[in-house]
């Protein structure tokens, strides 16, 4: 039992070993099973940073789940931390690990090679300075290697170093390495990668990982770790760029203080500097740079601060403060590159949410210029984008935003797309440049107003949007409603799906992309008619919630009345007025709603008509009663 305090353990290590080369964020990527996780595990193990209990846990796990044979450690098990990963022997999602040498600190993201999980690789790559691209020496460069190289280059990862792994399985043969290195050089020049280097390694045996391997005397370059310790880091470059500050949060503790909190995305700022707020283009000067530790004279890229300006401007979250002499661009039409990350395909014309820096707003992909073939990097025509596909697209926004090209500034040019119904992050995007169309296309000023037109007709203009399965009775009910409204002296117009397809939408088929466009046009036409003061009855299967939402969003509050004509599929199929169900069942019609294409029932329609429970006439009366109650 110790009664007195024993002397503290002596150590002369300095308290803060500030690694001279700072912090490097990197990823491992490449095809499935090429040894990415093993490599990270090996680096952690060799850096002597693993703790005793972690090593004994690894020994235990290697015995139970190891893929490396009796008595060998399976280093991948250090990194593949999910139960499902251990069981399946693959990486599913990114693992973030931390290690340090006396030269540098590292944050490494081990990404999955499996194509299905490409979006998780994108997640890892988006914050990386450097990518270690692995190939299996026996396989060489394969499609997935190319895809990952492409994505890394696209996201602006500066340095890509190739690790030719499993050299132990090809007898450490120099020729094998040379051949793969040559393939990589070709790939690198196609992708315009600035820094490329190839290293022959064996992650399993530890050859050329943290020190030169005696097994490969013909290789005289640096080991992987030596390379990582000295590779250039990107963070300091942001300081040299023009000042950008996305306003994140308006800091208003009381009436006498109004500050704008955020991180300096690039450049520097000092008290007294002029700034410009975009997109409003109002200018002011920096009065104070406030921080918890006291006011600062200046701040630079990467720092989180709160700026107080000289003037009371109306600035809010999502605005971009920038240097007036070197300002960001402003536009509402863009060329951008998208990496699609959702199981549901991208549909041009559908409304998504875009989040760029701290700003979120609705956007549509107005057209897909071309997709990229991941094997040849050639441009190919595309009408939609499916999971893991990459394309250049035109984006269209409802309002102008400030931005920089992604190439110049990742933080003011990189965005995500969000599905408005599922809230999923469906794409990562990189802005390239503004399409000047926005400035040229001035909307014709309208002299007679919409309320005046409505007043002339003595009615409240609206859209009654009938949705439901084919044969559910939409048109029957809509026709009855029109007759009854007409009899009351209202001005109405019916837009029927079948009829519109014969004229305006003659060029469209039945793929998901065409269906979206079909509805977009009908919604726009309906909007013009509402503008003209009419009551518009649209009768249209419109199976997708998001398209109906898009139509709703086009109208003003209260103008859009969604009428769900709810008839069970069995009933519709039994009726089969047009004989379409029979054909669909026989496989003669593809993408038929209810059969091999989904119908997403409305969840909050203004009117829910159950056609099995009442006559068409009674249902029409219900619609009229609703309209009467609303005016």
């Amino acid at each position, binding site marked *: 039992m110790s009664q007195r305090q024993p*002397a503290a353990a002596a150590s002369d290590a300095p308290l803060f070993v500030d690694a001279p080369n*700072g912090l490097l964020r990197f990823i491992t990527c490449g095809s499935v099973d090429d040894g990415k996780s093993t490599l990270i595990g090996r680096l952690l193990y060799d850096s002597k940073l693993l703790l005793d209990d972690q090593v004994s846990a690894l020994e235990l796990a290697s015995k139970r789940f190891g893929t490396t044979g009796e008595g060998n450690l399976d280093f991948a098990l250090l990194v593949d931390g999910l139960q499902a990963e251990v069981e399946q022997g693959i990486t599913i999602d990114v693992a973030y690990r931390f290690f340090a040498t006396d030269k540098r600190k590292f*944050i490494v993201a081990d990404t999955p090679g499996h194509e299905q999980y490409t979006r998780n690789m994108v997640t890892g790559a988006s914050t990386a300075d450097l990518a270690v691209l692995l190939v299996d020496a026996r396989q060489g460069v394969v499609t997935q290697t190319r895809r990952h190289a492409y994505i890394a280059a696209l996201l602006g990862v500066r340095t890509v170093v190739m690790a030719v792994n499993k050299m132990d399985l090809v007898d450490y043969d120099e020729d094998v390495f040379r051949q793969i290195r040559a393939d990589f050089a070709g790939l690198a020049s196609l992708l315009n990668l600035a820094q490329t280097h190839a290293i022959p390694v064996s992650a399993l045996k530890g050859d050329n990982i943290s020190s030169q391997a005696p097994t490969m005397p013909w290789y005289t370059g640096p080991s992987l770790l030596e390379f990582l310790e000295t590779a250039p880091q990107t963070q300091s470059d942001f300081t040299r760029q023009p000042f950008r500050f996305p306003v994140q949060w308006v*800091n208003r503790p009381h009436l006498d203080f109004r500050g704008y909190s955020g991180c300096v995305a690039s450049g520097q700022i000092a008290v007294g500097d002029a700034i410009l707020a975009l997109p409003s283009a109002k200018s002011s000067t920096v009065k104070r740079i406030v921080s918890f530790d006291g006011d600062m004279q200046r701040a630079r890229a990467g*720092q989180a601060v709160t700026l107080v300006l000289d003037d009371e401007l109306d600035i809010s979250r999502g605005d971009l403060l920038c240097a007036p002499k070197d300002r960001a661009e402003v536009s509402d039409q863009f060329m951008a590159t998208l990496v699609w990350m959702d199981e549901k395909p991208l549909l041009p014309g559908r409304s998504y949410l875009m989040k760029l820096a701290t700003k979120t707003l609705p956007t549509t992909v107005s057209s897909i210029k071309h997709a990229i073939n991941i094997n040849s990097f050639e441009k190919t025509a595309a009408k939609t984008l499916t999971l893991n596909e990459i394309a250049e697209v035109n984006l269209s926004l409802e309002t102008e935003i400030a931005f920089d090209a992604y190439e110049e500034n990742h933080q003011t040019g990189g965005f995500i797309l969000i599905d408005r119904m599922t809230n999923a*992050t469906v794409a990562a995007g990189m802005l390239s440049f503004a399409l000047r169309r926005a400035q040229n296309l001035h909307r014709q000023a309208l002299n007679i107003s919409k309320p005046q037109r409505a007043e002339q007709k003595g009615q409240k203009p609206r859209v009654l949007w009938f949705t439901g399965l084919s044969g559910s009775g939409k048109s029957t009910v809509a026709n009855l409603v029109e007759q009854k409204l007409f009899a009351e002296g209202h001005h109405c117009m019916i837009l029927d799906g079948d009829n519109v397809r014969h004229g305006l939408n003659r060029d469209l088929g039945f793929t998901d992309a065409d269906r979206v466009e079909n509805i977009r046009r009908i919604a726009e036409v309906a909007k013009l008619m509402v503008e003209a003061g009419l009551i518009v009855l649209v009768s249209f299967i419109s199976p997708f919630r998001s398209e109906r939402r898009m139509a709703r969003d086009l109208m003003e509050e209260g103008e859009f009345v969604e009428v769900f004509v709810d008839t069970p599929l069995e009933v519709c199929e039994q009726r089969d007025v047009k004989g379409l169900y029979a054909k669909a069942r026989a496989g003669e019609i593809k993408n038929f709603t209810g059969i091999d294409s989904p119908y997403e029932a409305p969840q909050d329609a203004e009117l829910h008509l159950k056609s099995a429970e009442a006559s068409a006439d009674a249902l029409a009366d219900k619609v009229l009663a609703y309209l009467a109650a609303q005016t």
Partner: protein
Amino acid sequence: MRNEADIHAVLADPIRRRVLEDLARNPGLTASDLGEPFEISKPALSRHLKILEESGLVEREIDRQFRRFRLSARAETLDWLADLRMQALAPLSHLDQLEAESIHTMREVVAEMSNPVMMYSIGKDSSVMLHLALKAFYPSKLPFPLLHIDTTWKFREMIAFRDQVAERYDLDLRIFTSPDGKAEGINPFDHGAHYTDVMKTAALKQALDHYGFDVAFGGARRDEEKSRAKERVLSFRSKGHVWNPKGQRPEIWNVFNTRVNKNETIRAFPLSNWTELDIWQYIVRENIPIVPLYFAARRPVVERDGALIMVDDERLPLEAGETPEQRWVRFRTLGCYPLTGAIESQADTLEGIVREMQVARTSERQGRLIDQDQSASMEKKKLEGYF
């Protein structure tokens, strides 16, 4: 023109250095511009400007009625000014980077979510997280309450510290204890794993549901454990607070998608990329108060299954033949006292702790009996809604 030695004397003065710095950045400032950062009289500033002019470092020009100053060609050659420019361009230290990243996450979540809360477990990570939050929203008060899930088995010193901190920063602290657990008298000795389920996991879920919080900040770090290393900064939990590790939302750059579906909530982890050593170095650098239990002292302990358990109050049932002995110990991690193992240590200063950290051969979770009851237990707990 003065010689080198004189130049050093001229540069020795902080006010004159600052004037040069400002002129390097903004040539053509007036005397009143230059004087703004200082609380000195006009004549005093004039004297400094005169010295700078006489030394040949600064030149003046008359522009209508204003006297404007700029650096001379000679000043531009000074190494010191070149260094200054270099320094302004140097990358931030890694602690500064981590700090800014965490603050960014907190602000983003607060700006976009409607009812945030910060989990406050009183430990060192919570202390750092709270400190970062105070920085993130300064000079505003914390825009969210703190939530402590009190199992009633925390160390007494933790509770005292918690109440002190709440008072010092004028925090809105909510304390929640499982009503069922309290009623049934659930304790760590008789109920084992069930104790953790009821008093921690279920209590946390009940508290979040009770207040309707849509996002909870937690101090978890990715270096703590393998399944945490897999988790996003924003971790989405479906109904029942369940984590779905195979279907995590992509998290690109630092652009967070915080949109939640019905019944979905978020756990936000601003300390994701910090390591245990980073935490301690930051505590030292920022002088952040922590519970005294982290420092070594003589404390009454008993040894059980290789763990040193502190006899914090009379509720700890002593087994036959067990007598508490006084030993020099401290804690690397804090939880419920009967479940938290101490380590033998002499480190009674922050410096001592960091030094011990640098040579440590075991991970901090060693001391937590709760994580060791089965392999992959942390992932399982997360699946069930524990942090």
